[in-house]
Each structure stands twice: as structure tokens, then as C-alpha cells.
């Protein structure tokens, strides 16, 4: 088994999930993950594998997003369209979709660095890996994460309250 194959087997699942959460699109996430492993193939030595992969994937997303913001808009439009077309068979799946939409909004409301740190942490990266991938000082990761978590929960709750208020208005 080649080194890249081992890297792929070990980290692809984590990386794809991280990217999917980051981008809101699985196909795109898999594309970026593949490109990341292609870069790894070209790299002679990688000291801290996971941090390196997450850093490269994050930068690829950043570059691509800068180059082609239109694509993302298009995809999110498609996603919305798709969601509208879904025949909800159950109340619960509707609720889930609404939750996912709220979660997406709350995540998007975070500052980029906070968001990435949080998503990396959720993939099990430790503080030193997060620091390396995001070029932070290791000592500031705890502060970054605590801020990200607090803001995420607060904005999620706020969005939820807004939604409940809207529903109440619509009902009355």
C-alpha cells in the first residue's frame, strides 16, 4: 500500500465530512478532498499528516471560492430548489431540514477562522493540529474554540427564536 493510499484510507472520511460541513455540498467536498490527496502525492515529506491535509484542503477551498464564487451561489440555489422540491413524508424530516438550515446559517455567521477551528475540532483534530492547519498559536486555540462555540450556540438560538416568532405570527 502506497503512502498516499494509506493517507487516503486514514483521512478521507474525516476530510470529506469536514469539507461537506464547510461547503454544504458533498460532491464538491469530495472533489476538494481528492485534489488534496493529489497534492499530497506530489509532496516529498509531510511532517504532521492530518494538519497538513486539513490545511491544504482549507486553502484549496479558499482559493477556489475566491476564483469562482459564482459556482457556490449556483450550488446553493440548486440546493434550495432541491429542498423545495422534496416531498416531505414526515413532520420530523421537515423539522430536520429546518434544523439543518438553521445550523447552516449559524455556522455561516461565524468568523472564518472560528468556523474552521470548530469544524476541525469536530473531526477530532487536537489543538496543535488545528494551530498548525490554521497558522494560529497553539495557546490561542482554546480561546478561538470557546468563542466559536459560544457564538454558534447563541446565533443558533437566536435564529430559532426568530423562527418560532415567525411561526407564531403566521399562525395568528
Amino acid at each position, binding site marked *: 500500500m502506497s503512502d498516499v493510499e494509506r493517507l487516503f484510507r486514514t483521512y478521507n*472520511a*474525516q476530510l470529506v*465530512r469536514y469539507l*461537506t*460541513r464547510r461547503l*454544504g*455540498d*458533498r*460532491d464538491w467536498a469530495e472533489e476538494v478532498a481528492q485534489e488534496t490527496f493529489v497534492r499530497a502525492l506530489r509532496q516529498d515529506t509531510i511532517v504532521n499528516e492530518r494538519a497538513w491535509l486539513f490545511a491544504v484542503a482549507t486553502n484549496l477551498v479558499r482559493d477556489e471560492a475566491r476564483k469562482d464564487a459564482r459556482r457556490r451561489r449556483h*450550488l446553493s440555489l*440548486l*440546493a434550495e430548489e*432541491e*429542498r423545495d*422540491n*422534496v*416531498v*416531505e*413524508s*414526515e413532520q*420530523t*424530516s421537515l*423539522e*430536520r*431540514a429546518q*434544523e*439543518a438550515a*438553521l*445550523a*447552516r446559517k*449559524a*455556522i455561516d455567521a461565524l468568523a472564518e477562522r472560528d468556523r474552521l477551528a*470548530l*469544524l476541525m*475540532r*469536530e473531526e*477530532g483534530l*487536537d*489543538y496543535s493540529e488545528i494551530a498548525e492547519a490554521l497558522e494560529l498559536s497553539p495557546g*490561542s*486555540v*482554546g*480561546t*478561538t*474554540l*470557546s*468563542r*466559536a*462555540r*459560544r457564538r*454558534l*450556540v447563541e446565533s*443558533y*438560538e437566536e435564529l*430559532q427564536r426568530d423562527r418560532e416568532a415567525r411561526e407564531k405570527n403566521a399562525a395568528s
Partner: protein
Amino acid sequence: MQHPDEGMIHAWLDGELSPEESAALEAHAAQCEQCTAAIAEARGLIAASSRIVSSLDAVPGGVIPAVKPAKRMWYSSAQFRAAAAVAVVAGASLLVMRSGSQKAGMPVATKPQAAVATTKIAPSQAVQAAAPRAQAAQRAVAEQDFSGKRVAGVPARGEAAKAAEPAPMVADAMSLRSATVAGAGVDLKVIRTDTTATAVRTVYQSLSGGQVILVEESPAALMSKAMAQTMERRVGAAQSAPFASNLPAAPAVADTSPVAAYHSISWVDPVTRHRYSLSGRVTVEELEAIKARLLQEKR
């Protein structure tokens, strides 16, 4: 020691402090009510944000393909029928051996919820030194769940391989419960069973080809569900994502036209006080027939 800042508390809960730093923080927190409360809050934030992030994975009908439910047609293929005859004996013994075990990843759904509940119920409880370990355990479970999903995703991709090897699929279905509830002229197939702290949820293949969902809740579970909901109102999401993604995103009825209206019936077992609700895109008559079939099966 001065009061630790929020970042340090999170680092401690994430298991990222050195042993010396941890010891100092624990010693301080044991005597400081303010910090005990801050730790409880931080723990709640960690659990809640974990849940919010994982609910990103449940996007039914979005551009992210959800984990595919078991294909509806696999059991009707000729290969399956042939293999089923052979596999019944193996399946039955498997069933006996594995009936107690849950499908990997299922209990995950309740984990974050439980964590949230604990922190919210008892914010002033003594600081548990075990917190980082609990956090790690939660993480480990999340990992397990994810690997479970990946495994579940594999057969969906290799359609051809699946057709060629029906036998393992039989064993798998058998282990969920007997795949086909035989007899009484009503052909009922269990597609999947999900178990959470509050309910057992079973997806059946209905007579007309759609899917119906049976939810069984015990009285105790209903109590804790009410509690959990109160917690959730404070914290956030109403359903946890891993559970969500284990369910079929939308029952695959699109290809059986016309799509029936959505109906639901419910009843309470007079003996166990368990509450059942059965719902799906089928007629009420059909739901009643399935209910009768299920009650018969219980006896």
C-alpha cells in the same frame, strides 16, 4: 490560581491541558462556585455546538446525498429468492446470536442529547474530573457512527456487486429482525430499526410498496422525552442528526404513482402502556391491516 478564562476551561474540557494545568484548574474549581458554573456552561456549549455541527449532515433533499436506505427492490430479485432459501437457516442462527445487539452507530443519537441534559439539569453540580474523558468517549462514539455511515454507503455504490452477492445482505437483514414477518397473508418487511433512548423506530415495507414507520415509545421514555424537549428548547436542535441520517430521507415512493396521502394511526398497548404510532403514505385501511399483523406477531 486566578480564575481560568473561558479558553482555558474549553481546553481543559477538550483534554488539552497539561497534567499540572489540569490539576491546578481542578483544585481551583473545587473551591470556586463561579468557575464551577462557568465549566458547566462551557460543557453545555461544547455539547450543543457539537450537535449543531452534526445536524449539518442531515440535509434531506439537498445536494448532499444522504445515506441511502436499503434498496426497495433487492428482496424481489430472483437471486435473492434463491439465496434466501439457502440463507434462512444461517440467518435464523445469526438472529439468535445477534438479536441482543444493536446496529452499530444507533445509540449515538442519544449521546449528545444526554450530555446536554446532564449539564443543563445540574449546572451547579460538583466539577467532574472525568469530563475530558467523557468528551473523548463522545468523540469516539461519533467516529464509530461515521464509520458506520461509510459502511452503509458502500453497497449503495456497488449495485452490481450487491446483485452478485445477495447472501450477506440476507444475513444483515436477518440480524435487524426477521426480514420477513411471514404468515397471515400479509407480507411485511423490516427495512430498518433505529433505537434511541425515547423510542424504537421501525421502517417496514408496506403492502402497496411504500414505507411505513412504526414508532414505539414506553411511558418512561415519554417522560424523559418531555424532559429532553425542555432541554432542547434551551439548547437548540430538536432531533439529533446521526439518528436523522440513519432514516430514509424520504420514503422511496416516488416511482409508485400515484403517491398516496400521508396517514397515521396510533394506539396504546393496555398492558405495557407503550405508545405506538404507525404512519406512511398508505391508506388508513392498510395501516390498520399492518397494525393487526403486528399485534398478531406479538402474541
